[in-house]
């Protein structure tokens, strides 16, 4: 929740910028750079984070005249950050620059042990961060840009459908349908090998 004093400060700064004081935008960059990086860092590879965060602030500046102030600047900026990440993935998928690798045996083993009833084993496996992060990346890379963003926001971050809809600028119904389908796709990707093995037996 945004501090009301921050809101007033932001409104003054924005008014100042819209009156022609371009340099005043630096105050907003300084104030919200960590917030923007925390969003961008989750959605795009770390090697791209600086460039995407740069784009977020440029877009925010270009759209500042259309900022109504209803939801607060921080919330508005979060939406721009999420949509810039979404555009990044759309571009990547269109140019086929996303590596589509199948999950390896080590990844399958990680999944098997994580879902197993053996709590000690599960604890050890969940602490193996490298495998976990590789499984996550490989699975997300096999989804479309739209499914990827919805899975990240709803399934992994725990945003409500309404929050995700606000951030992506889509309707709540669209988010609900896509979240349901994307979750099923993700489960199929993660358990594909297991199903195949069970089918062979």
């Amino acid at each position, binding site marked *: 929740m945004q501090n009301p004093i921050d809101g007033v400060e932001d409104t003054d700064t924005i008014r100042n910028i819209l009156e022609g004081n371009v340099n005043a935008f630096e105050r907003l960059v300084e104030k919200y750079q960590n917030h923007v990086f925390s*969003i961008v860092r989750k959605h795009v590879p770390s090697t791209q984070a600086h460039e995407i965060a740069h784009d977020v602030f440029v877009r925010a500046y270009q759209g500042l005249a259309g900022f109504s102030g209803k939801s607060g600047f921080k919330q508005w900026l979060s939406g721009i950050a999420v949509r810039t990440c979404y555009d990044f993935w759309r571009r990547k998928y269109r140019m086929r620059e996303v590596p589509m690798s199948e999950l390896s045996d080590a990844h399958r083993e990680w999944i098997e042990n994580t*879902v197993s009833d053996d709590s000690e084993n599960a604890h050890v496996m969940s602490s193996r961060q490298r495998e*976990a992060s590789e499984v996550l990346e490989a699975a997300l890379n096999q989804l479309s840009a739209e499914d990827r963003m919805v899975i990240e926001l709803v399934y*992994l971050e725990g945003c409500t459908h309404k929050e995700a809809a606000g951030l992506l600028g889509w309707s709540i119904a669209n988010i609900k349908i896509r979240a349901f389908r994307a979750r099923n796709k993700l489960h199929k990707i993660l358990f594909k090998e297991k*199903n195949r093995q069970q089918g062979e037996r």
Partner: protein
Amino acid sequence: MKYPKEHMDRLKDALSATYRSKAETTLPVDSQWRQNVIRSIRRIGPTRKETGHRLDFSNLVWKLAPAALALMILLGAMIFRIEDTLDYQLAGLMVNDPVQTYITIEPL
């Protein structure tokens, strides 16, 4: 295939924890990066509050785009048909008008 709910929940928890840990790793944001952003902003120049009329007009343009496209297709089809008919009419005139044909064929 249906998967047991507790399996799904365990996997979801592990993946969510991994995902959240990405956000916790802080990236170095130096003043150089901020200066680059400001430089890009200065290059764009001052931004101003758009007037109500201009906003309304830009919204209207996009709302009317599908209708304009349909109209263009319709007009295109009409022009194509008219051109076709004109060719036939001209050819018919040439064939049915011996005087005109004579003039056209032997003007001297």
